[in-house]
């Protein structure tokens, strides 16, 4: 009964979605206020019914109702409760439902926080979001119904893939989808602006916090996914340039460009056409990611159970949503984006333009590398692989260029600046950078040393120039707090995110250049030295988990004769699927991770063991957290809220706007 209720709720949500799409869009054209208002109620109803649907599916998992095909395939009565609940989105059907539900939550949020928008604009935004949601709910109902029954029911479920039995699954997909799906808001604002013919600074300001929030969620989602791969896959890698990773990285790169270009549009009223195009591109790439992951056109380590009919459906959806938008763009943008505002190359917006150029090329490069094998195959030239060596070669120079530009960009003034002034302001940062670079090269003096010095000094460059740009008064000390309090949230967000980028840069460079690893045959009692750490294999024992049995190896690690930590690495066999899993033993610290993973048992009591010391690897994810945090802080800047409340546009709403003149 409960699954049928869920299915019914899904159908009701679908119908409400149709209303949410139809009435406001038609009402906005006809100027019918009552019709426009339908959007808000339909959106709330849709969110309510999708919540019911998701709750029903969750209930089926919680009570292990193996008459539901999706539950039978992805759960097991021995599965712990928290994994039963996260198993809801552990495979295709449920994750699509999560997708739809999150879209309805974003829509709900728009109805709550954007009440002050002009009615027509709000109607159009809700209508467009309704159209997108309509497509996805149709997709779920026709090709991926999670509520399908099995007759007869299975006695026992096949179990959740052991790789997914991890806290990572609880948080990674929801965060990722909050990002992907959140871009639908910015997209809807862009389409609404194109439809309404009003594309101005106010539009950029309204849509910006939504894009910032979605971008921050996506940042967290990607970072968590990377961290999960790092500790779960058992060989210490954290980014593989796998098509599915690229599918999430491309919208991130484009959205990073978007949050910068929309700042220009908001502040200066220029780059409007480009910002709209980026907003469409970001959402297009989110949909493309969904297509790549679920259609099976590319081989990936994260394969969903693929089905060509799903691929065809999503491709159709992509054509309808994005093709339609680009057609609209081609038709309307030319009349809308005329701007007579000046645009000086040496200015904040000039550097942001350069940043956009690099980020866009970076995104296009990832797209090129991801789809190139497909194109070669389609042309009948056989198969080739484009892997990490390619991406690292072409991607790293682009990111280093971005790092250089950040320094000048944060210093430059809006509108018009002078190169000598920027140079003068950057002098302290340049000195700090040079000192660090020279010192680092002097200490290391080898090829990796030079690369590490480059990365670290660029990080110093970013941090020192960003701090310079804050204009904080350090003296007297008593004035510092007051001076910091004067910095608006948007700027704090920028500072935090840029520092996060620097932190990640250091983590990526140092961990890839200086990680040490060894692969040994070890028996209990053996000691192996890696990068100054003595790993002693002290004990081998059997451990029983709730739904698996494991062999656990205990390692005591000492540095300079001092006990540093105890690591427990496991090799698990999950009972239901009989699948083996490696659980690495990791001791994470600020400056290094110690990492042990078990390979296979060898003759005797021996095991194949991989030992790693990875310096500064946590900085990668620490940086990502800072980046996301910066995005959230900026999204909550006062001026967005003020605007929402007053519903007035123009210079007068923003006293600060004139402050710097």
């Amino acid at each position, binding site marked *: 009964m409960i699954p049928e209720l869920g299915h019914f709720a899904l159908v009701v949500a679908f119908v409400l979605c149709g209303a949410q799409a139809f009435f406001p869009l038609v009402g906005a054209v006809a100027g019918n206020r009552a019709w426009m208002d339908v959007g808000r109620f339909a959106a709330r109803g849709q969110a309510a019914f999708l919540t019911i649907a998701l709750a029903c599916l969750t209930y089926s998992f919680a009570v292990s109702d193996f008459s539901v095909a999706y539950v039978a395939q992805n759960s097991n009565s021995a599965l712990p409760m928290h994994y039963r609940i996260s198993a809801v989105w552990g495979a295709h059907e449920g994750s699509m439902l999560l997708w739809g539900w999150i879209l309805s939550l974003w829509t709900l949020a728009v109805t709550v926080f954007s009440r002050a928008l002009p009615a027509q604009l709000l109607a159009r935004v809700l209508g467009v979001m309704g159209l997108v949601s309509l497509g996805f709910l149709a997709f779920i109902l026709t090709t991926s119904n999670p509520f399908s029954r099995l007759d007869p029911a299975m006695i026992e479920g096949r179990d959740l893939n052991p790789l997914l039995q991890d806290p990572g699954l609880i948080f990674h997909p929801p965060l990722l989808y909050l990002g992907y799906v959140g871009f639908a808001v910015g997209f809807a604002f862009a389409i609404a602006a194109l439809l309404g013919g009003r594309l*101005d*600074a106010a539009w950029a300001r309204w849509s910006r916090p939504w894009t910032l929030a979605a971008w921050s969620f996506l940042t967290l989602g990607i970072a968590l996914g990377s961290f999960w791969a790092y500790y779960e896959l058992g060989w210490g*890698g954290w980014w*593989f340039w*796998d*098509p599915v990773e690229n599918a999430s990285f491309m919208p991130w790169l484009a959205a990073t460009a978007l949050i910068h270009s929309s700042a220009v549009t*908001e*502040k*200066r*009223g*220029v780059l409007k056409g480009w910002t709209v195009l980026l907003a469409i591109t970001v959402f297009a790439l989110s949909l493309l990611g969904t297509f790549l992951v679920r259609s099976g056109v590319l*081989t*990936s*380590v994260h*394969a969903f159970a693929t089905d060509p009919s799903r691929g065809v459906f999503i491709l159709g959806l992509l054509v309808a949503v994005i093709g339609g938008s680009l057609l609209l763009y081609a038709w309307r943008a030319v009349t809308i984006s005329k701007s*007579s*505002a*000046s*645009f000086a190359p040496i200015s904040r917006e000039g550097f942001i*333009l350069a940043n956009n*150029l*690099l980020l866009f*090329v970076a995104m*296009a*490069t990832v797209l*090129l590398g991801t789809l*190139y094998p497909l194109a*070669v195959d389609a042309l009948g030239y056989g198969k*080739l*692989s*484009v*892997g*990490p*060596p*390619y991406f690292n070669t*072409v991607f790293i120079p*682009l990111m280093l260029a971005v790092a250089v530009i950040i320094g000048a960009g944060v210093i430059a*003034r*809006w*509108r018009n600046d002078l190169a000598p002034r920027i140079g003068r302001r950057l002098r302290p940062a340049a000195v700090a950078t040079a000192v660090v670079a020279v010192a680092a090269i002097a200490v290391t003096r080898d090829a990796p040393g030079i690369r590490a010095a480059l990365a670290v000094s660029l990080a110093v460059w970013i941090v020192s120039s960003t701090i310079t*740009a*804050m*204009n904080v*008064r350090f003296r007297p000390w008593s004035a510092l707090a007051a*001076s910091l309090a004067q910095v608006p949230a948007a700027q704090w967000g920028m500072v935090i995110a840029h520092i996060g980028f620097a932190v990640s840069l250091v983590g990526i460079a140092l961990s890839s250049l200086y990680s040490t*690893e*060894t*692969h040994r*045959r070890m028996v209990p009692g053996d000691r192996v030295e890696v990068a100054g750490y003595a790993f002693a294999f002290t004990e081998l024992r059997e451990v029983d988990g709730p739904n698996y049995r494991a062999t656990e190896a205990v390692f005591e690690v000492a540095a300079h004769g001092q006990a540093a930590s105890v690591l427990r690495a496991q090799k698990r066999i999950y009972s239901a699927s009989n*699948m083996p899993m490696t659980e690495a033993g990791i001791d994470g610290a600020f400056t290094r991770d110690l990492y042990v993973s078990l390979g*296979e048992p*060898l003759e005797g009591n021996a095991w*194949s063991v991989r030992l790693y010391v990875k310096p500064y690897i946590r900085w990668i994810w620490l940086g990502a957290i800072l980046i996301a945090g910066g995005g959230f802080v900026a999204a909550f800047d006062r001026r967005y809220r003020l605007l929402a409340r007053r519903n007035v546009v123009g*210079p007068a709403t923003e006293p*600060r*706007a*004139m*402050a*710097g*003149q």
Partner: protein
Amino acid sequence: MRWIWFAALLAFASATFGADSPLVFDSAEQETRFKKLMTELRCLVCQNQSLEDSHAPLAQDLRNQAYAMMRDGASDDDIMDYMVDRYGEFVRYRPAFSPLTFLLWFGPLLLFLIAAAVAWRWLGAQQAAAGAELSEADDARARRLLNGKSPRKEKQRK
């Protein structure tokens, strides 16, 4: 259903055959060189993993093969050619330069140049338009009247 044998193969990957015995190297340099080479080779049976990362038995066999060749003095190119001769260009994670991959390798540069040219032309047109129509002061006044935004600079507290 068409992929049953892959499933079987993967199951086999975890069976007792996958003796994951560590290789012994003469020096740290040799080990580093070997690992780097293995990350450049794609495992065929896995979804998308390098020989270095894969635990599949075929990957183990190919690692052993490469190891034996390296100890016999084969260069990285020799080993790469050996793999490509048998398994095709697919095994290279770093596609070889060829007419087929020119666009892949020069694509990023090409994209950058195109994007830069477009941006440059746009900048030129923008400046010409703005410069021709309005002086700076006019511009500011006009924009204020036209409900445009005034620029907000970083706060100056000198």
